[in-house]
Structure formats: C-alpha cells, structure tokens
C-alpha cells in the first residue's frame, strides 16, 4: 500500500502549466528519487505536498489520509530539507532545533532528540549563531531540524545542489544513514546522487511524470551494454563499424571509441573488432549512467510532451 500517493496534481502559474497531472507514489522505507531538470516541476510538487502552495487540482493521500489545502496535522509526520535552508540568524543551532522540536510536537522540547540530532549532523560542539554558518553547516542543520519529532517521511528538495564537493559528500553520507530508518522523497537534478542513494526514481519533465521505476528495473530495462574500445585510430575504426545493424550509438570520446549495442549484440561487436584493420588494445564494458538513460527517455518523449 502506498504511504504517500499523489494523483493528477495540477498547478498553473499564469500561462505556464507547471504541473500537468503529476502522479507519484511512495511505499514505506524506500528512498524515492524525484528527478528532472530545473523548472520541471519538482519544487512545485513538493511545495504543494508540504502545504506551502495551493494546488489547482489533484489528490494527495498520506498514510491513508486525504490531504487538503487546510490540513496541517499530517505535517507532524514529515520533515523537510529545503535546497537553500534559512533559519533565524540570531539563533544558535541548538535553539533552532529546540523550536523545531516544539513546533513539530505539542509545544514541549524533546531535549534528548535535539542532542541526538545535533550529534547526527555533527553540530553538537558548535556554539555560534546560525548567521555565521557556512552553507554546508546550514544544510546539515536543515537535516537535523527535519528529524525533530521523528517524522516517518523526510522530504529533501535538492539538498546538495548549492554545495561544494565536500559539503555534498557530507550530505550524501547523512542521507545514506537516514536511508536505514526513514522513507525519503529526494528531489534532485544531480542524477549521479540519485543513482547512489535511491531505491526508486520518478522522472518529471514539463510538469508530467514520464518515467517511474525501481532502480533495479531501470538498470535491466534501460541500461544497455556499452563499451569503450581503446585503439590506435578511433575515427578510422568508427568508419569501419559505421552502419552495422547491431549498433545503437557510436562515438569517439577522448581518443577512444564509445559503443552502445542492441540487445544480445556483444558477440557481433567482438567479431567485427577482430576483423578490423586497426590495432585494438582493450575493450572495456561499462554501465551507462542514469543521466544517459534519462536523456534518452527525455529524447523519446520530446515529441509527446
């Protein structure tokens, strides 16, 4: 049974149809990657889910309960990490978490949970005001405050997009830890991050979901074998292989030949390479990234959207 179900969600900004019937469902204890390029509709979907924006149409069911625009009780079960977290700059990290704890519950502060969260995000020893925090520290604090009240669902809106590589790695490590105990809805346009973390992904483009699948299924269904061929003269080898029916794509990348194949065509490639006049030094199999798969899916759907 779906833990969170979004059906036919619609939102229009003037002449722009930002969401055009978005459907999305999460089961408990999974990490769902909500991916798409900038402006695809990810943040709008999350803002409606979190009650920060009114919808034009559609249904949201959370833990079996229908959510309307005036509902607030369901938010006790949701923690949110925004892309650019902002907290009152005159507060310290501990005070931010104390307020988050009191807001999330019945007004009392769960001090044990506050200390636990500060330890979890590595801010327990920091006694400065939030105004002096780096972006990475603010992002970690955002994760800490999202954990107040032990919510079942953590919603993250591009939490790594504004961070440097070190900050991004820290947040991804925290997400790996979170993954063990929570359901996570993770919006991102950085597909390499989604690939590392997510159990399932949904691809949104121009306000419509164009793919929703388990990562395992995506790898089986979409990711076709690809090869790097290290050779003396890649352009000549490309010309030699050009036009063969078992090939899907053929390109020269960094002096080597990159090849993707139709199903079950590996043996034909190897046979052709053995007949090639060029010297072949190595043939390496590689897995195409999620990014390549999504670019392909976006390309396939370009005409229908």
């Amino acid at each position, binding site marked *: 049974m779906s833990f969170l179900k979004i059906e036919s969600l619609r939102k229009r900004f003037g002449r722009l149809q930002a969401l055009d019937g978005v459907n999305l469902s999460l089961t408990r204890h999974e990490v769902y990657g909500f991916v798409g390029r900038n402006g695809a509709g990810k*943040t709008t979907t999350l803002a409606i889910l979190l009650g920060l924006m009114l919808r034009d149409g559609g249904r949201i069911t959370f833990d079996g309960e229908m959510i309307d625009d005036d509902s607030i009780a369901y938010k006790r079960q949701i923690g949110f990490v925004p892309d650019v977290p902002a907290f009152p700059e005159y507060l310290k990290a501990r005070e931010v978490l104390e307020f*988050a704890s009191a807001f999330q519950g019945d007004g009392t502060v769960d001090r044990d949970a506050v200390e636990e969260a500060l330890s979890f995000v590595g801010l327990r020893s920091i006694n400065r005001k939030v105004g002096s925090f780096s972006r990475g520290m603010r992002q970690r604090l955002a994760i800490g405050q999202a954990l107040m009240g032990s919510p079942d669902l953590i919603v993250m809106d591009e939490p790594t997009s504004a961070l440097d590589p070190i900050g991004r790695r820290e947040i991804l490590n925290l997400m790996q830890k979170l993954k063990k105990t929570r359901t996570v809805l993770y919006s991102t346009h950085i597909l390499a991050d989604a690939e590392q973390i997510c159990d399932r992904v949904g691809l949104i483009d121009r306000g419509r979901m164009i793919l929703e699948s388990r990562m395992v299924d995506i790898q089986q269904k979409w990711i076709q074998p690809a090869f790097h061929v290290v050779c003396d003269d890649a352009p000549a080898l490309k010309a030699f292989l050009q036009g063969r029916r078992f090939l899907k794509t053929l390109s020269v990348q960094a002096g080597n030949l990159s090849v993707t194949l139709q199903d079950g065509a590996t043996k034909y490639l190897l046979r052709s390479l053995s007949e090639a006049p060029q010297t072949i030094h190595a043939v390496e199999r590689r897995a195409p990234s999620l990014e390549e798969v999504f670019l392909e899916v976006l390309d396939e759907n370009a005409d229908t959207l």
Partner: protein
Amino acid sequence: MKTLIRYDATYFLKTPRWLVFVGLAVFLASLSIVTARYLDVLIEYALRAEGVENIDFPPPSVHDAYEQFFSNMTQLYTLVVVFVAAAFFTKDFTRQYLAFVFVKPISRLQYAVSKLVVLNSVWFAALVLGSVLFAFQTAAVFPGFHPGRFALATLAFAVFLKLLVAIACFSSFAFKSFLGGALPALVVFFLFTGLSMVEAGALRYLPSHLCNLPLRIMAGEASLRPALSAVILSTVLATGLFSMAVTILKRRSLT
C-alpha cells in the same frame, strides 16, 4: 501557540529591537519633561540671541508637559512602531524563514495572531514604561498632574498605534516587502494627522480624531461621543484589516 509566541518574542529579545522601543519611550518621556520645564528659558535664550529682549513668557505648566509628551510620541514613537512592525511582519518573507515554520504543523491564523500579540505587547509595554516615568517626573515637577486623565489619554494613543500596526500587518502580508508594509501605514498616519486639524462635522467621529484626542482629554475638552466613535471605528477597522491579512496569508504561496 505558546511556542509561536516564544519564537516571535525571541526575535525581540535576541536583537536590539526591544531596546529601541524601551530606549525611545524612556528618552522621549525624559526629554518631554525637561523641554517643558525649561521651555520659557529656552525660548527667551533663543530670542535674545536674535536680539529680541524684554518679552515675558508665562511660566511653564503641566499642560506644556502633556503637549511635549504626546507630540514627541506621535511624531517619533509612532514612526518607529510602524517601521519595526513592517520589518517584523515581513522578515519571514524576505529572509525565507517561512519554510522553517510552515512545514511544521502550524496554522497560518495562529502564526499571524502570535506576530500581532508579540509586537503589540512589546511596544505597549515600552509605552507604559515611558508613560509611568513621565507621570512620576511630571508629578514631581509640576503641580496639577492628573493621573486618571493621563492613563486614559495614553490608552487613546495606544488605540491609534494599534490601528497603524494593523495596517502595517495587512500591507506586509499583501506586499511581502518592508516598504510595501510600511508605506500604507505612513500614508494613513500623515492623512490622519492632516484630517485631525479639520475637526468639523462628521470628521470628528472618524479614527483621525485619535491624533488629537490625548491632548483633548488632558485639557478636559474631549467629548464622549466623538471619542467613543473614533475608538470603536479604529478597533473595528483594525480587526477587519487583521482578518483580511489572515485571509491573504492563507491564500498565499509561501515559497
């Protein structure tokens, strides 16, 4: 609701805003009594510097003190209240703190009520402090101080401030910017000040009557019906504006 009030009160306690209110109220109270006490000396000194001599001024009275106090409060304290109100109501919009608050189970009505309660409490407490200080000083310096009338006049002034704060609240939620929040309240303030000089006919019953009401009360010249009408209309207007502010907040996207 208690947590929201604590959250909003923390803003005043952890920033110098509360000191602005208290400091200004105390300063204006002390300045008013000093100015009133030495008003004749100051004017004589100024005129002598211009070569005008042998003009006798009547000795200052308790009414000069009242006039100094309420003029200072109207001209300075009111403006500070309006500017701080606009900054306070719009800070969560302009600094993007809204997501921190509204992704939690918090109703928008409670959020708005908390803001109004905290802000009104802070400026009112500072006003009371300044008024009490002024009352003790005036009673010590001038004979004939009337504490009952003074309390009533201070309350009338507070009703006027409450209306301006409600206007600032409404315009802040509507325009989401500091200037958008402050300007309408300032325009109403200057409009009311102008209208209060024309106290003819039906104008006497409008909220603008509150601008001069404190001094009329102190002079024993206030009429009950216009005063009551101005207070009731102001309260109704403030309540209506606050309800509209909440409606706007409920319909607004908070991203």
